[in-house]
């Protein structure tokens, strides 16, 4: 029994479907990225997993319990950081921590928050308001807030979409470190193929909407730990990258085409070929 089981998920508005027949599983401690064009329903899937949206069809079971409504068991990092601008960094995180452990006293909450502020490298900015922070720092607060409640699963909705490439790289590295240290189960949406290769254990490719499907689930065979700076010297890197880009450019057509089968693609044999 997998940790997260999604089966037969569909979202329809009237007669037109955003996506149909979406099914996948995620194991505990796994990092899964979902890649696809805009409008294929990635965010809707994430919102359904979070319990913020409801599916027209299908079920989501996490840890042997059906997902019905939002829960502290699933932490969400929103696309726009979604920090409350009237609260300081510390208070934003404390708001989440107090929701999780209402019985904690002030000192306990503060110590716990500080730990996660330090973890994302925001030491010294505890009492700043979000408006005084850069985009990257805001997103770090969002990540710290999600990690601080120790959810069973973390849902990231394109968390680095609005950041410049340099900041993005730095925060990706940090996320990688934190995930490795906490063995966090993560489901993440991204548009960035390199980001998916760097972070994910498996990459789900969605065909374009309307009526989108999960076209392929690609195992990421690159060895861990991965390094952003040396990763592209790995022989498999470009094969994997080309496969993903090729899919997005050529094969993610809307409507169902015969080569979109939903089968799991394993690139393992190809690698051997390459080495031979």
């Amino acid at each position, binding site marked *: 029994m997998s940790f997260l089981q999604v089966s037969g998920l569909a979202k329809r508005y009237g007669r037109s479907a955003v996506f149909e027949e979406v099914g996948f599983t995620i194991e505990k401690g796994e990092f899964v990225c979902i890649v696809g064009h805009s409008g294929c329903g990635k965010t809707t899937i994430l919102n359904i997993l*979070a*319990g*913020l949206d409801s599916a027209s069809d299908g079920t989501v079971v996490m840890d042997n319990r059906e997902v019905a409504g*939002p*829960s*502290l068991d*699933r*932490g*969400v990092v*929103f696309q*726009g950081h*979604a920090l*409350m*601008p*009237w*609260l300081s960094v510390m208070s934003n995180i404390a*708001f*989440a921590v107090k*929701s*999780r452990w209402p019985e904690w006293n002030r000192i306990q909450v503060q110590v716990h928050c500080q730990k996660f502020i330090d973890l994302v490298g925001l030491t010294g900015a505890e009492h700043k*308001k979000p*408006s005084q922070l850069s985009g990257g720092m805001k997103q770090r607060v969002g990540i710290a807030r999600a990690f601080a*409640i120790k959810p069973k699963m973390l849902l990231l909705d394109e968390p680095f979409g609005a950041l410049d490439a340099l900041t993005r790289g730095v925060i990706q590295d940090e996320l990688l470190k934190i995930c490795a240290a906490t063995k966090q189960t993560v489901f993440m949406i991204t548009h960035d193929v390199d980001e998916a290769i760097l972070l994910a254990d498996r990459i789900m490719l969605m065909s374009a909407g309307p009526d989108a499907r999960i076209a392929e689930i690609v195992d990421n065979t690159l060895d861990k730990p991965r390094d952003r700076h040396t990763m592209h010297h790995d022989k498999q890197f470009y094969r994997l990258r080309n496969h993903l880009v090729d899919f997005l450019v050529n094969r993610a057509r809307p409507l169902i085409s015969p080569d979109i089968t939903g089968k799991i693609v394993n690139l393992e044999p190809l690698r051997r070929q390459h080495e031979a």
Partner: protein
Amino acid sequence: MKPRTLLAGVLSIGFFFLLLGIWHLSTLPKAKGAAADTEYSKLMGKSSGKPEGFPTPAQMGEAVKRQLSDPFYDRGPNDKGIGIQLAHSLGRVAAGYFLALIVAVPLGFAIGMSPLLYQALNPFIQVLKPISPLAWMPIALYTIKDSSISGVFVIFICSIWPMLINTAFGVGAVRREWLDVAKTLEVKPLRKAFLVILPAAAPTILTGMRISIGIAWLVIVAAEMLVGGTGIGYFVWNEWNNLNLTHVIFAILVIGVVGMLLDFLIGRLQQAVTYAD
């Protein structure tokens, strides 16, 4: 910035003295051609020692000095110091305003949170809002049978609408992502109302409160002219009946200054709850 502030201050003072000068020149006593005809003046009641015509700045200054030196004297119902009258007016405004606040904010919260309630109550609000608060006066007098409390009611009814509408708007416009955060954190409804929605909507609510206090201070003068008895509005009307224009002008200035202070007060509150995004 600094030199401009200085210049603006100098200009302000300049304008002040310019106004005083114009006032002084236009109220200079006219050369009395028929000065000999005191008999006629007496017949016309114009030599009883009362100031004639529009007061000069000098007379005004004296009156202000006299009033401010003893603002709390009380010589019967028709002759009270400006301080006492102001206290009556401010008391009524405060009572009506806070009653309105207590009703408007929770009700506005409910309307802002529930589209159903909003649609159901909107026609009532739209019809009631444009009614001049003074039009309620007869109804208030008839049902309450107390002129002072009727004044409070009129303030209540005029200050409730901006607060109600702004609260409903502010609560309804709370960003979805903040509500989503609260949802994913399983925040209880009451905690959500006080820790997410209230601070998010506070700047808008305070805007409504600021509009309301302005309207309330406008309306109290008219209401007190109508019901009489006490208050700054009654003071103005009473001094008009006495043909004492110095006191009328003095009261006008006081109304302006107090109105400014009230606005400043709520403005400071508004600043305190406004957040940079």
